[in-house]
């Protein structure tokens, strides 16, 4: 699956798609493949503050619990309700399934994140291809 160029990526396998001062956040195809069948999300509450690089919740597959790391700093404005009822949607369409929306405290933070091309390279190294 090619990585969409309309967003940035982190080394923790999340994507962030900015639209002015707000952004949508999700996990990448590499992440959903590594996790396997996703069964549970522990999401932050609307209104909570996220700090870039810090954990803000967890995603669980049948076998394991994985931390989610905030790609940028800001305030959570919306949580995707589908996550509670149909977490498997993230396996089926990881780049189309957003987990949360947020207002960005410092949109400039995204400049330091990986482009689609850089993330693809990073993933290729991780997977040892």
């Amino acid at each position, binding site marked *: 699956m090619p990585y969409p160029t309309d967003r940035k990526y982190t080394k923790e396998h999340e994507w962030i798609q900015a639209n002015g001062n707000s952004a949508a956040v999700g996990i990448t195809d590499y992440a959903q493949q590594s996790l396997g069948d996703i069964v549970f999300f522990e999401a932050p509450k609307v209104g909570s503050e996220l700090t870039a690089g810090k954990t803000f919740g967890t995603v669980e597959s*049948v076998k394991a619990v994985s931390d989610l790391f905030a790609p940028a700093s800001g305030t959570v404005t919306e949580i995707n309700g589908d996550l509670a009822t149909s977490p498997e949607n993230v396996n089926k369409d990881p780049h189309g399934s957003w987990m949360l929306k947020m207002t960005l405290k410092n949109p400039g933070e995204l400049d330091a994140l990986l482009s689609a091309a850089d993330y693809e390279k990073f993933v290729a190294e991780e997977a040892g291809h």
Partner: protein
Amino acid sequence: MSAVEATPTVRKTALNAVHRQMGAKMVEFNGWDMPVEYPASIGCGIINEHMAVRTAVGIFDVSHMGDIRLAGPQALAAVQHISMNDASRLAIGQAQYSALLYPKGTFVDDVVVHRLGEEDYLLVINAGTREKDFNWVRDNTRQFDCVVENLSDDFTQIAIQGPKAVKLLQKLTDADLSTVKFYWVTRGKMCGLPNILMGRTGYTAEDGFEIYIPSDEATSARVWYEILEAGKEFGVLPCGLGARNTLRLEGKLPLYGHEISDTINVWEAGLDRFCKMEKPEFVGRAALEQAKAAGVKRSLVGLEMTERGIARDGYKVLDSDGRAIGYVTSGSPAPFLKKNIALAYVPTELAAVGTPVKVEIRGQGAGAVVVPTPFYKRPKK
């Protein structure tokens, strides 16, 4: 993740290359490089594999398990000494679930005892305990006139499990499987191989067989692919350790190191019905008698989450006031039941069905309740 190479000290089954060829995600399990699940691109993944076994058929490479043979004039006496169940009840071709115990009544391992001949017994044991069990069996049966052989490396063992499992295997063997009752074995030509041992046993709480074929890579691969080909019409899927664990958990089948171990006794684990105290002697009997008289302090129970959250291995169990009272031995989402379930040790006085408890998940207590087990029982035909 499937491209990660196993370290040199990790062991591989004869089917290792096949699993990697099929794109399985590999994991180290008790010193073995094993498939945890197969790829979504071939319709697999833990949930699909689990559902295949519950509704159709799935196959597992279980060659990592061990095999110990006891044969000779006093083979039965030897088995009776080290195994807590009563092997004298076994007809030739019959098998039973049992356990090997330490003198203090705790578990060396659980085991399926098969009677293969007049004086010929096969113990099938866990992967992680191969060497420990063999040494234990050999050291505790020296006084009996029988040979003790470690046959673990001689077999590739494949489990074929699910409501369509018998139909699938029947296509590949001349043995009449309809005459083989659950927990009995037979021998027959299978995939062109003569005299293959096939037991109607398994670890999935479904009908099915486990077959023991020669352990060379070529034969193992050929048979594995022939089973998958023959199973296409039934919707067969290759299944890994991920589904193996969720299947056995739904069926409340114990896993060594979790529900049973060298610090847990037979009564605590609730395995009374496999422990024949009417046998005058077996290793651990005296301690078990004392333990029963002293009262069983903790018991293994089934839990179902009543609030959001997944209970996992090692999580604390709390009473409704938030005090730690026990721990989860195995916990996971249950793909067929569509609930989050767990097995846990709690004080015996809190083990009644319906008792509300909490499971500590990342510092917070999430509600759960003690439920009857097994969580899943296969429908009667």
